[in-house]
């Protein structure tokens, strides 16, 4: 416990800036993963435990494309689109068969996929840590804001994540696809009865969620090291986000992800040994006070 370091940090503008930006980088990446998870749950009523693995695949795919083409933009696009397509494949061939069966079967299937994907990545890229390195466009001298050096990529990452969050929100609120998604989230069987093609809707939502996870992976690749199994920790974190924010609530996911980012970022200054525990404590407190999360409505399965 180092409360003095924490208070010193909060009272200095440069440290506040650095840590605050860090909080946003952690939070926004987490939000991209968790929003896909919460979307899929809201509409399909399945818990996608493979979501972390999709993030990992996105990161590795971006790494691979960047290595062969040297274009980071292309890497991000291919990773997002590729993982979205993979999501459709998963939904059509696997998840679709389990909508009627119990949660235990879904859990088991996802466990199988996690094992397969982790090993496949190990087979293709090796078990050791890989790092992609910073794309040359962003490899400039850091900007100095409020006396703190800020890498350009951080600003780009946060901006892109916010734009994507805004786009997803507009998609859900303003388009006909979005109203179908909201309808399905409220009452799936009625949506089908009204003649809406639920099969297509499900595939679309799963592709969107998977694409968001892939995008998060591609954005994380320059600033995180890649390793098989990297998906699992972010999966747990995304669960915590959905639990704090409330299952099925995108706005809740955003608030919760940034909360966790703040907790992690400032926690690493104040109590480096206990950041993990801080995040869990946050979750436990929220769960005990509001079992359905901050923005959750009681979930009816």
């Amino acid at each position: 416990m180092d409360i003095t370091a924490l208070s010193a940090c909060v009272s200095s503008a440069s440290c506040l800036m650095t840590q605050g930006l860090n909080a946003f980088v952690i939070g926004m990446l987490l939000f991209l993963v968790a929003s896909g998870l919460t979307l899929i749950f809201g509409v399909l009523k399945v818990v996608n435990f493979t979501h972390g693995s999709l993030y990992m695949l996105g990161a590795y795919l971006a790494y691979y494309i960047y290595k062969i083409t040297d274009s980071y933009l292309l890497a991000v696009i291919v990773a997002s689109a590729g993982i979205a397509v993979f999501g459709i494949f998963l939904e059509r061939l696997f998840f679709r068969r389990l909508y009627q069966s119990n949660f235990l079967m879904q859990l088991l299937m996802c466990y199988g996929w996690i094992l397969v994907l982790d090993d496949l990545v190990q087979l293709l890229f090796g078990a050791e840590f890989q790092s992609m390195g910073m794309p040359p466009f962003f490899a400039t001298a850091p900007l100095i804001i409020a006396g703190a050096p800020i890498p350009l990529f951080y600003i780009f990452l946060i901006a892109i994540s916010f734009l994507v969050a805004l786009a997803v929100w507009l998609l859900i609120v303003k388009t006909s696809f979005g109203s179908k998604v909201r309808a399905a989230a409220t009452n799936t069987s009625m949506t089908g009865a009204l003649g809406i093609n639920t099969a297509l809707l499900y595939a679309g939502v799963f592709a969107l969620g998977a694409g968001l996870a892939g995008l998060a992976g591609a954005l994380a690749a320059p600033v995180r090291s890649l390793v098989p199994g990297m998906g699992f920790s972010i999966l747990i974190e995304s669960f915590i986000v959905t639990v704090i924010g409330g299952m099925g609530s995108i706005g809740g996911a955003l608030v919760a992800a940034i909360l966790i980012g703040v907790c992690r970022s400032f926690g690493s200054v104040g109590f480096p040994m206990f950041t993990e525990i801080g995040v869990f404590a946050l979750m436990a407190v929220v769960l005990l006070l509001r079992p359905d999360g901050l923005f959750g409505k009681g979930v009816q399965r």
Partner: protein
Amino acid sequence: MKNRLLSSTLLWAIIAFLILAAMPGLIASQMVLDLIIHVAIFGLFAISVNLLIGYTGLISFGHAMFYASGAYAFGLLMQTGTWSVPAALALAVLSSALLALVVGLVCTKTKEIYFTFLTLAIQMMFYSTILSWETFTGGDQGLTGGFKKPVFLGIDLANANHLYYFIAGVVIVSLGLLWHITKSPFGYALRMVRDNAARVEFLGMNVRGYRIAAFVIAAAFASVAGALMSLYVSAAYPNFGYWTMSGEAIFMIMLGGVNTFLGPLVGATMLTLLNHYVTAHTKYYGLVLGTIILLYVLLLRKGLLDIIVERFIAFRADRTLPKKQIESRLP
């Protein structure tokens, strides 16, 4: 009725022990005996998880935490050199049960998916604590260095045969206790909580109390399994508490059968054998196991022992009973 149950359990326990005890005489291969011990320990672990999943309807994905807590508590107590094996075993189980009481109090506030998340998340927290608290747990190296096993009641656990008998005995006694718990009024109350929690509430019973009790009992038996593994390998490793351990237990249950008491033991046998052969041939164990799990989920979806028991009951019922009645006769 009660006495009949007790005597039949004792009879089966003695038969099981005699069969297991005859093994070292019949089989000279150390490898096979080693596999039997692993199956016994994993089977006990899987059956303890099934008390939650199959009987109470609580899908815990964090049960390996208590397997690990049992293993570490036992290992740490033995390393002090002041405790006898039974005392250390009892203390390890007691401390794990207390830990489970705390975790259970938090987790049972939630339902269904949230419960699964929460158990998974707390397990990961426990795992990272094991990794980071190096002075106490040995960090990622695990609790190595071995420990002395003082002789008690004429049982010398340094002797491989004695060790084998002791572990087999403890597993069989634990399974007998668990069997009695599932057959007791308490066990039937757990099934009722699983099938219709609202009805249990209306009957004036405390659903959450039953869930917590099931959680603690399941954790206690899981910690027995962990402590036995720790005794067997004279060490405890962090991966005892990793989430894959919980995942494997769930797969054992599904492979063997959720609806039968010994189903998970059958599943443990299948998975341990599979594990043994696959790891001998390839380092990509996850790829093979994952593929098998996916095939199971898409094609089979029922545990082996469940299928056998169902067929047997259907056969005995002359196939004239409607499906509903056959299901109601399942144990």
